């Protein structure tokens, strides 16, 4: 049986990380080159970790399924990255960022992790600026800030609406420098398919060369997964098309317990669906809510054009319900408000599944030039996709699956329940609780990669006695055989449905029953339907081609097979958690005004699920102790 120890250091919250850094063992600089570390994934967390570890002197091997490390989906983040610099002199501090993030996560994350995140946030900005990341500046040459949801201070650093791209290119340039220096061995178009565990510790990975189909072995002393989130389980999401849970899921099946799988974030400002040929949903930065006002017609079924609906017949839903935070209420709350309005028949557009995001007042107040400077490219993007001009007609927006707070369970050192397997960024569960605030994903990815893992992995390496494990170890052979069997099986089914078709059906189940609002019956139905669908997949999917060359059908099928298991666990977890918190809204548990009703007495714990076999998990509870911030009802009114 797996026992979980969060390894949270003792002491005052402000001292935990400092003391821990001192207490951790160090690897002698001359010995670092004797250690091999594998990093899987090259998004913000993976690229920053790989670069930082290589700079320290470790031998780093990096794998990505992309053609280039610069393609990772971190690149699509638009709005910004939070830090407690307090440059605007508006009352920010590390403690306030800690407070906002813990509260934003609805008190379902670890205090110590969140505090550390806030603590290193300032270093991230310094680091990125030193790399030449072009953050927006004021006329005097100082850094500019903007506001984001869930905060009353301006602490978000940004680069137009391409902050994720600029931060990723910063980390990518640091990684590329180490590749050029020979400290990183970079393998592109490699999909990690198994973690290799020898004598109970992670000692390597097995990956498929996506061009030749060859299954390759990589051995190491430690493995870092930075493989992102699992929103693509919903089929339609804001995630990139290749985003998948396979690396994390295969690690889970090897013994890494999976935490809070039902904590998923539905982002409020996405473009609505155009029809059933849709392949993904497009996000527009939440920063739009700084100047855009969300509204619906007061009367259900009002089909008039927005400009014909007078002010008094509009319902500015967020401003009415949450006067303090208004249009900047956190994501889960804003998404739910939009869904409620649409459920009441007040939705707009052809489908009735959208609400307006209106800039008319801001354009009047600030002028077209200012709005253009702030959101010009988002306006262009909107028009390109919808063929509507947001300067004249309000945007239509609707929530879409976006980010997954759940992920592989890790301790304070970012190590999973498999010793030697570390998990970074969105792939782990650690910092955002039941809801992530805007501009905090970039912060966490870079915090983990630049400023946490370089310390904690040294402690593990220095404190562990390693036997010799090479690529020809029998454990590798075993994994390769398993993968080859799986490939053969997928290719031999030759059924009547495409992988995408089955994936779309899974997505509909997840969206309707494990989406923005959940209930006991729906979750139970979902479990059954997913099981049936999984069975159908293994009987009736059609995967053409061979395993011996580039085969996009095969890649997709392997990933969907994993989603079909993960989806079930999300429903199982949602069913266990008889409370509403953050992105997990159980209809049975709400206050009279429709706000989420948390149950701290019974559910102030992390749900960590140990894999037994397909469809069978054991729940391990890690209780959350709030020593410094007492959980209160989260109010943004």
């Amino acid at each position, binding site marked *: 049986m797996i026992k979980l120890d969060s390894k949270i250091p003792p002491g005052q919250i402000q001292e935990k990380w400092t003391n821990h850094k001192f207490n951790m063992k160090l690897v002698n600089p001359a010995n670092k080159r004797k250690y091999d570390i594998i990093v899987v994934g090259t998004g913000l967390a993976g690229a920053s970790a790989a670069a930082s570890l290589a700079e320290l002197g470790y031998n780093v091997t990096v794998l990505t399924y992309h053609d280039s490390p610069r393609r990772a989906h971190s690149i699509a983040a638009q709005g910004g990255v939070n830090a407690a610099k307090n440059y605007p002199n508006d009352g920010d501090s590390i403690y306030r960022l800690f407070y906002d993030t813990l509260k934003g996560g609805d008190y379902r994350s670890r205090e110590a992790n969140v505090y550390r995140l806030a603590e290193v946030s300032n270093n991230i900005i*310094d680091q990125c600026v030193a790399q030449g990341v072009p953050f927006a*500046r004021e006329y005097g040459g100082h850094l500019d800030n903007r506001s984001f949801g869930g905060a009353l201070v301006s602490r978000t650093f940004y680069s137009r609406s391409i902050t994720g791209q600029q931060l990723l290119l910063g980390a990518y340039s640091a990684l590329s420098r180490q590749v050029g220096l020979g400290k990183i061995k970079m393998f592109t178009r490699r999909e990690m398919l198994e973690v290799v565990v020898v004598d109970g510790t992670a000692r390597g990975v097995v990956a498929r060369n996506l061009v030749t189909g060859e299954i390759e072995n990589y051995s190491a002393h430690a493995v870092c997964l930075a493989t992102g989130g699992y929103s693509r389980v919903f089929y339609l999401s804001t995630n990139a098309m290749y985003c998948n849970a396979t690396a994390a899921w295969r690690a889970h099946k090897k013994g890494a317990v999976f935490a809070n799988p039902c904590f998923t974030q539905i982002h409020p400002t996405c473009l609505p669906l155009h*029809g059933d040929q849709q392949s993904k949903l497009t996000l527009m930065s939440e920063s739009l809510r700084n100047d855009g006002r969300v509204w619906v017609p007061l009367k259900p079924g009002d089909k008039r054009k927005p400009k014909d609906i007078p002010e008094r017949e509009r319902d500015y839903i967020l401003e009415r319900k949450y006067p303090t935070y208004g249009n900047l209420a956190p994501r889960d709350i804003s998404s739910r408000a939009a869904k409620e309005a649409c459920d009441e028949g007040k939705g707009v557009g052809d489908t009735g599944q959208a609400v307006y995001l209106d800039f008319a007042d801001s354009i009047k107040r600030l002028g077209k030039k200012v709005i253009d400077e702030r959101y010009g490219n988002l306006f262009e993007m909107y028009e390109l996709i919808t063929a509507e001009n947001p300067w004249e007609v309000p945007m239509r927006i609707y929530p879409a699956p976006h980010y997954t707070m759940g992920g592989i369970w890790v301790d304070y050192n970012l190590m999973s329940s498999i010793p030697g397997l570390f998990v970074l960024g969105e792939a782990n569960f650690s910092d955002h609780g039941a809801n992530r605030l805007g501009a905090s994903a970039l912060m966490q990815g870079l915090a983990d990669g630049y400023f946490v893992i370089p310390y904690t992995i040294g402690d593990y390496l220095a404190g562990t006695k390693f036997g010799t494990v090479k690529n020809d170890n029998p454990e590798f052979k075993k994994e390769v055989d398993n993968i080859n069997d799986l490939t053969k099986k997928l290719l031999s089914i030759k059924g009547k449905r495409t992988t995408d078709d089955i994936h779309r059906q899974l997505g509909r189940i997840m969206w309707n029953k494990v989406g923005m609002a959940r209930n006991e019956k729906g979750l139970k139905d979902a479990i059954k339907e997913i099981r049936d669908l999984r069975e159908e997949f293994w009987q009736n999917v059609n995967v053409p081609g061979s395993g011996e060359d580039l085969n996009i059908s095969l890649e997709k099928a392997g990933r969907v097979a994993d989603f079909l298991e993960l989806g079930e666990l999300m429903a199982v977890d949602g069913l266990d958690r008889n409370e509403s918190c953050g992105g997990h809204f159980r209809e049975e548990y709400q206050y009279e005004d429709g706000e989420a009703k948390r149950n701290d007495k019974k559910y102030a714990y992390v749900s960590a699920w140990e894999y037994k076999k397909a469809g069978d998990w054991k729940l391990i509870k890690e209780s959350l102790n709030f020593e410094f911030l007492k959980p209160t009802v989260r109010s943004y009114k």
Partner: protein
Amino acid sequence: MSGNMNLTLKIWRQKNANAVGGFETFNVKNISLDSSFLEMLDILNEELELKGVEPVAFEHDCREGICGACSLVINGRPHGPLDKITTCQLHMRHFKDGDIIWIEPWRAKAFPVIKDLIVDRTSFDKIIQAGGFVSVDTGGVPDANAILISKESIETATDAAACIGCGACVAACKNASAMLFVSAKVSQFAVLPQGQPERYLRVEAMVKRMDELGFGSCTNTYACEAECPKGISIRNIARMNRDYFMSKIKSENVEM
């Protein structure tokens, strides 16, 4: 907008890098005007999969125009008929019912075809590895506001840094030159204070690597700028040429 259309597609298919490729004809039906170009290809691919035929391999990922993975020369133009967008941002409302659409991969010596419409762009990564960075390790950096940067410089740097590394500039150029890509990265750092210490070493190293990788020379046709989905300006090439010239004056790496 609604309404559907039927199209004929002439798509380049090539089994692998060593195989001889050629165009194959496909028909797709009932394509929504609101669908994206890649969604149209998804529909084709699903039909092929159902028939047990291997789908057309093409590269794509974010479908928001930022990751740089998608490519495709559509009717002779990289990223299709519209200016300043990527293929994934192209919507079918820009085509007509009954159109014949030609779809090809990027074509350049430095971007060999891997399969069908997928090409190998690792040469771009290799150029960055040669010098597309500020040499700074993690930690030990000054406070972010200790480095003051004028609004003008940051705007110029951001314009250049917006490059997504898709390779359309190379595909558009008759010489398959990578000058626009390389100059964008060189420029980003050339106008920022952080980039100054390595300014001339950087341009020298990156240009050298670019030449070694088989990219052609720039003959100022501006095709790269015209096809760049991010509107990267050829002013960057002029800036890089100036810096490259200076680097040769200042360089210690004199080749006799």
